[in-house]
């Protein structure tokens, strides 16, 4: 049997024989004005518009295991999250029109069966700059048990900027801690812009500290192995939280080990 990365020796053997994926880059989220939330519970975030497509390996390599991830972010307290995104729904402000997205995907984990993922980190992402005065957005969703017709409301700042995002897990109904799908979105006021509900599947969390922060992807030896491996063609998106949201740039570095 080949090396499905069960040990440090497997990691070294696969990396030496097939080459590990060591990648680094730059991302930048430009916001015209700083954003703050207007309702308690929501946490401001940036979604960097640049994404990374995982390269497709050649047999016998079948995918990648995330080993470490580090990000440095200008001017931020908070955390940084590289993740796989699922678009659960989209609201077009003009016409108050909702378009359904996908449900959270199912993924097999090593040694286990395929299971539908929960979005515990669920975002309202402004994908088109809004013209709306402190709008309240109502989201109808299915919770972690796939119980539908659950409802949450979040108030966004006036004229929320593209690339800004708002974590609203704390606005879920009592007893809920995650979202699996969204069946409707509506907005109380506004004439322009688009807002998406994104379900994030984090690969890792990093901690921020200060201006030009360092976010330390923790080593395999002291942190649980991320829940699943990555396949070629999957897209990694980059997020960072902050108390107030203004423009941010980040450089990231990740080490992915080949899996056979």
């Amino acid at each position, binding site marked *: 049997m080949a090396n499905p990365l069960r040990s440090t020796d497997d990691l070294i053997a696969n990396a030496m024989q097939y080459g590990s994926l060591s990648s680094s880059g730059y991302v930048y989220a430009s916001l015209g004005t700083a954003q703050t939330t207007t309702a308690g519970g929501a946490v401001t975030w940036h979604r960097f518009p640049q994404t990374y497509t995982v*390269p497709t*390996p050649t047999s016998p390599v079948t995918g990648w295991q995330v*080993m470490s991830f580090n990000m440095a972010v200008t001017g931020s307290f908070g955390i940084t999250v590289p993740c796989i995104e699922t678009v659960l729904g989209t609201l077009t402000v003009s016409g108050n029109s909702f378009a359904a997205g996908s449900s959270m995907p199912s993924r097999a984990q090593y040694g286990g069966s395929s299971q539908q993922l929960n979005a515990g980190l669920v975002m309202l992402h402004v994908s088109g700059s809004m013209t709306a005065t402190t709008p309240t957005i109502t989201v109808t969703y299915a919770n972690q048990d796939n119980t539908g017709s659950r409802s949450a409301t979040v108030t966004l700042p006036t004229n929320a900027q593209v690339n800004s995002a708002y974590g609203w897990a704390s606005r879920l109904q009592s007893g809920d801690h995650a979202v699996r799908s969204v069946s409707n979105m509506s907005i109380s006021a506004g004439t322009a812009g688009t807002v998406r509900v994104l379900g994030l599947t984090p690969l890792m969390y990093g901690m921020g500290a200060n201006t030009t922060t360092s976010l330390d992807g923790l080593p395999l030896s002291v942190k649980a192995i991320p829940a699943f491996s990555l396949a070629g063609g999957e897209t990694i998106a980059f997020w960072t939280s902050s108390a107030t949201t203004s423009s941010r*740039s980040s450089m990231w570095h990740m080490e992915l080990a080949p899996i056979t």
Partner: protein
Amino acid sequence: MPSTTFDGLLARKLAGYERNVSFMRAYQSAGAAVWAASSTDTFNGMRFGTYTVPTLEAGVDAYVPTMMEWNASIGPGITFMVAEQISLGTLSLATPTFTDGSSAPTRTVGNTSTVVPGFCIGEVTTALNATPGNATVTYVDQDNNTAETTRSLTLGASAPVGSFSSLPLNSPDWGVRDITTATRTGGTSPSGVIQFWWLNPIYVGPNATISLLSADLLGLGTVRRFGTGAQLGLFGFSTSTQGVYGHIDFVGDSA
């Protein structure tokens, strides 16, 4: 063949095939950023130093970094980076003249031969004068799209040797394969030289002023082999006066 186990690397180390590289109190004075008007779309900092892998000893095919420890004066929360570096070219401001360098290397990644895009910085190698003008840089992005041109970058007044700024890219670009040209406009008797680097980190992480930090590179998944002439740069993401000391341990691997 290359070591394929931790024990194999350890055996090589215990057999004497090792290299301990100290970077004792590498130091930079405070200085301006390379792109003076940079705000939230660039990183600025200073180079601590550079390590060039010497001619390999008999019986050694490559050096594998296994761990590093360091302490820095630039404070917690400020990024410290060690990265493989390849020169993409230089811009002499006076004429101005761009001299082309190398490009991003082709490596075996996941059993596939592919170009590895990198994080790109401009670094001052000859100090800039007081009014150096503006620069624009033309680059090849991660997907091999050519003729990507940056916005006009205001050059930092009297930026000292060793100061660097990341190259702000056009969205949705995240990486650089090559710099094809760069030029300078404006300024008053502009002078100085900026060198552009492709960087591929072996470590990016925090600093500490009161305690020692360490990184188990193998545990972090960094399994890299460096041959003769490979260069590792040490960088602090701060333009304040700063110093660092520490060491990187390598194992001399066999062919």
